């Protein structure tokens, strides 16, 4: 009975009626709250509806019901990571994605490719959050410095007014000095803003990913590189797919199998460090 509702939900989902599908899965859950696929199906439906808090809840229940070690839970873990990314919780998303990615490799699951992408996405968001904070901080620093320069000007102008009031300088001298003070301040502010601009532009200009971090198959930055017997490193998901199909080394064409691939931990460390500082590289 509850499975009939699920079947109806699946059909509505295929037709693009996500609200209708969600309703069917909800009814199925009411009848049987112990069936994990009802929750995982409602999770992906809610992804389409962009109800991310709902996706998080459903995905977590589905993972629980499947059991932590069951590879059938990998799709739900992927949904969960997506939801956490959308909810701007990159740290948690990264943890979920990395663990699920490792589990998907162990289980030789088809989810590896999606999860591999999600790991990179999470790394990017982690960086973006840090970067936004840095820019904010820099902007605040600039604003503070501008305030200090302007306060200096105000003090100098007040002094000048005092000199005029006490008759120490004449009206003409006062006007000239006042103008000079304002001009000096304007110049100082300009130099200050230019300096800050150069500092942040410098980083944008250096936005180049070194070739040795780029997977020669996907042309994207790697996060889990594997090295072939002939010594070239590739992203795990890409090289695995190629070697499974061709059974040869892509550079030398010497016969090989997936078991001949070795993780390249040194390069992985370099990629990780690079991504921490350059999350933009994910979209490069």
């Amino acid at each position, binding site marked *: 009975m509850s499975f009939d509702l699920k079947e109806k939900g699946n059909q509505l989902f295929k037709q693009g009626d996500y609200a209708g599908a969600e309703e069917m899965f909800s009814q199925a859950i009411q009848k049987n709250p112990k069936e994990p696929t009802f929750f995982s199906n409602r999770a992906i439906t809610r992804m389409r509806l962009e109800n991310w808090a709902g996706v998080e809840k459903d995905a977590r229940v589905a993972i629980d019901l499947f059991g932590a070690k069951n590879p059938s839970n990998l799709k739900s873990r992927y949904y969960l990571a997506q939801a956490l990314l959308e909810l701007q919780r990159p740290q948690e998303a990264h943890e979920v994605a990395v663990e699920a990615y490792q589990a998907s490799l162990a289980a030789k699951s088809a989810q590896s490719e999606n999860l591999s992408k999600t790991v990179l996405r999470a790394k990017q968001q982690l960086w973006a959050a840090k970067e936004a904070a840095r820019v904010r901080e820099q902007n605040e620093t600039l604003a503070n410095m501008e305030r200090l320069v302007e306060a200096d000007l105000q003090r100098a102008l007040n002094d000048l007014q005092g000199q005029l009031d006490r008759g120490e300088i004449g009206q003409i001298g006062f006007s000239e000095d006042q103008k000079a003070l304002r001009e000096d301040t304007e110049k100082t502010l300009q130099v200050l803003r230019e300096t800050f601009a150069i500092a942040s532009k410098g980083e944008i200009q250096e936005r180049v990913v070194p070739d040795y971090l780029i997977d*020669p*198959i*996907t*042309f*994207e930055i790697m996060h889990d590189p594997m090295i072939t017997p002939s010594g*070239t490193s590739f992203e795990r998901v*890409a090289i695995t*797919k*190629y070697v499974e*199909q*061709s059974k040869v080394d*892509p*550079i030398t*064409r010497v016969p090989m199998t997936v078991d001949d691939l070795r993780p390249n931990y040194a390069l992985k460390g370099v990629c990780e460090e690079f991504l921490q500082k350059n999350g933009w590289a994910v979209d490069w």
Partner: protein
Amino acid sequence: MFATKRLSKELIKIKEHLPPGISIVKSDNLEEWQMDIRVLDENPLYLNQIYRLKFTFNNKYPIEPPEVQFIELPTTSETPRPIPIHPHIYSNGIICLDLLSSAGWSPVQTVESVCMSIQSMLTANSRNERPPGDKDFVSYNRRRPRDINFMYDDDNI
């Protein structure tokens, strides 16, 4: 699948720079591109000619090779593009090149590197002839180039 992202990245690189004698003429989508190639030396077989290559990609690119063949534009067109004469190029434009077969392909190859290989395959040739059995092949072959088991019997061409 990697195809879309990988191709858009190749396209960015290609638009920045291509080796001499190779240019991109059509890349409206990520399924079919057309490239023009020209032989750079004085080889009389190909002097003053430009040839048009058609690349067709499926969503398994670059794990699987693109389909690459020459296409002909008539001499009456504004940009005439003949099929170059070569003992490994059939008169319908199908190219017999190990690199383009499923067995000879490597995912580290790119559109640019394929064009360069074909360019040098022409440069190195001095034989003014079509592959043996060209006529029959052209009239009977309905298979896709990738699926044909060419005999790569003379590696020195």
